[in-house]
């Protein structure tokens, strides 16, 4: 029955890992701005689109 000790130890450890992750996230200021990241996330596609012509421009400059 001592398997319960292992199980408990594992579950508590996992819980503590997540708890520490939360504390670290707060400490780094991830919760300071809860709006901008939600907008920023949607920019990814446009960024890829604009990168292409940019490359051509730099090549032209080199030529």
């Amino acid at each position, binding site marked *: *029955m001592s398997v*319960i*000790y292992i199980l*408990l130890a594992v579950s*508590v450890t996992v*819980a503590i890992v997540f*708890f520490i992750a*939360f*504390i670290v996230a*707060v*400490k780094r*200021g991830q*919760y*300071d*701005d*809860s*709006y*901008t990241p939600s*907008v*920023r996330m*949607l*920019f990814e596609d*446009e*960024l890829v*689109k*604009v990168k292409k*012509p*940019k490359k051509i*421009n730099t090549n032209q400059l080199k030529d």
Partner: protein
Amino acid sequence: MDKHTCFHCGLDATASKITFDDKVFCCNGCKTVYEIFSANDLTCYYDLQQAPGATPKDIEGKYNFLENTKIIEQLLEFNDGSTQIVTLYIPHVHCSSCIWILENLNKLNPAISASIVNFGKKTVRVTFNAEMLSLKNLVVLLSSIGYEPFISLDDYSVGKKHIDRSLIYKLGVAGFAFGNVMFLSFPEYFQVGEFWLEQFKPFFRWLMFAFSLPVVFYSAQDYFVSAYKGLRSRLLNIDVPIALGIIVLFTRSTIEIIFDLGSGFFDSLTGLLFFLLLGKFFQQKTYAFLSFERDYKSYFPIGITKITSEGKEEAIQVYDIVKGDRLLIRNEELIPVDCILIKGRARIDYSFVTGESRTVSKQSGDKLFAGGKQLEGSIEVDVLKSVEQSYLTQLWSNDVFKKDKSLAFNNITNTISKNFTIGILLIAVVATTFWLVVDSSKAINVFTSVLIIACPCALALAAPFTFGNVLRILGNKKFYLKNASVIEQLAKIDTLIFDKTGTITAHKETTVNYDGLQLSEDETSLLKSTLRGSNHPLSRSLYALLDAHDIVTLDDFEEHLGKGIQANYKNNTIKVGSAAFVGHATDAATLNTAVHISANNQYKGKFTFYNAYRKGLSHLFNVLKKDYDLVILSGDNEGEKENLTKLLPTKTKLLFNQKPEDKLEYIKYHQSEGAHVLMIGDGLNDAGALAQSNVGIAISENVNVFSPACDAILDASKFNHLGDFINMSKWALKIIKWSFVLSFIYNSIGLYFAVTGQLSPVVAAILMPLSSISVVAFTTVATNIVGRKIPI
């Protein structure tokens, strides 16, 4: 012709005739920004939002102070010589396009390695290479694309701000422990009595004990501190019964598991603290982009141009200005110190120092006061006093700015909690005495049970959740409150005091009234043509206000500085200007600004300028007059008195020529007579009055720009709903009282179990969260219903 709007900023561009890439622009500034963006493949900016831009302003020389190393050093967050990091406040940030362009600054200038926007705070944090791009050039770059950063004296101490995140940590700890303890106590709830469960019971219980330790000794800290402080000042605040409940819960549970009497109440204990802290967190609604603590420092520039004895221009820090310095004040710049005008023509706008709406002209040798804004070209001045000793800044040495208003009054929860605590202690003592007689083994059990169940969880949650929700609702309706205690104060208001200029009048807007002889068609046309040629502010506004007429080319045009204009067309002569200039006996009786007209040496009449009052002003005052005393406290002259008397209910008191200190004293006097005063103002001249009043509301045309220190900021467009907002706060208090009743019902049920000695952990574990959740649900629903009633 079709109506066109500027592709960049959305303003009317019908008349501009500026096109580029088949797109219409209102001015060359907007076109330039578009050119910059399209050359750098950043036109995505326009895909995200329509017309997201702002017209870039002319900024030549404005940021010269950013060459001063001392100022740069103070503004930078990080600096190792080459890499520098700076956080700039940009008021124009308003949509996703703004975030996008500001985070792609590296495409505009390769020296910028990263830029991160905080939309809530409207700031951008830029990492750049100082060897390739100076801070000044960075700011100029931002300004040229329409995102002009605002740098004020307030930024001088940047990087030293400490963000307090302890509440989130405490909440995290409590939530973490609550969840785990709940899991561990599940077997006990069902009391299945299986062999292996029985065997591990002590282990489970000690594990719960371990989880509750950080909750009691870390998360609950604030309640113990607050209860101790309350007791020391002989005040039974709400935290006293809470702290008592926590201590009893913890001690009894610990004793129970030590002597194997039961499983303890660790689940209720951690749950209670989790909900309490959640309430606190919810009430802490802050508006990151607003500041309620501003003083003159937020208005004042950080640097100014000094003219050295060799005649060279040099940027210096405002605090370094000493008496006798020669300063250069550019167009649209603020005068930071009291000084004497030496060179140039000064036209000063003192509106946010005195409330006076009219600009004043000054001649060389006149004294200028700090806080005025120069409107006409550059001037040179000699400094008389340093920044801290100037007339305006001295207002802030008044004691009223050092007081913390929220400490001065007893809030509703604490008032009720006093009687509540006494009641609970009485019940506990009576019940214990009863059981001592009947069955002494149960006495201690009953005593602790009463204190546990009576722990005013629901009571303590009612106010934070109601206020928190009301803050949000009002925030959505553009009335931003500093904190929850303002709502309570607002509900008690009986006197409303309004500032005039900028508060009940709309800024920069005037109406004009003509009295005198009727002007003929020709004369009006001539007048309009004449005004067209003049750059005087009054001519400009009169020109804009007159109806469209044919513009004729004048034969002769002459502007007499400080007097007026004279023009000829065919055989007609027209004179526009001061009364003396047009040959009319000066009527000293009028205090209003007026422009006199004479045609062919015959006096025709005058155009008088009046303030334009906000829409719905009359209606608002007529609604408010039923319940409140109304006062207008103006720093302006009596010119508008007649107009206001017509507009407002007769019992409104009108006071003019009030200096900032007079306003403060007036409010203080009324408060000493027992009035609860609401002050509504806009400028720095109202700062003292706003701080002295019970609730100070700053009205603002643009909430992102400046408002003096206050308790609440009201968007000018919602001014006519002021009455509704006060009613909302009264409703909030009613809702809290109802939820007190609700929580008392739960407490009585719990007390029945406690007094009869039947309180088991399961009952506590069900009853406590249930009461908390139902109170939270009730307040949320009720405030939303009330919020919907406000017709905005």
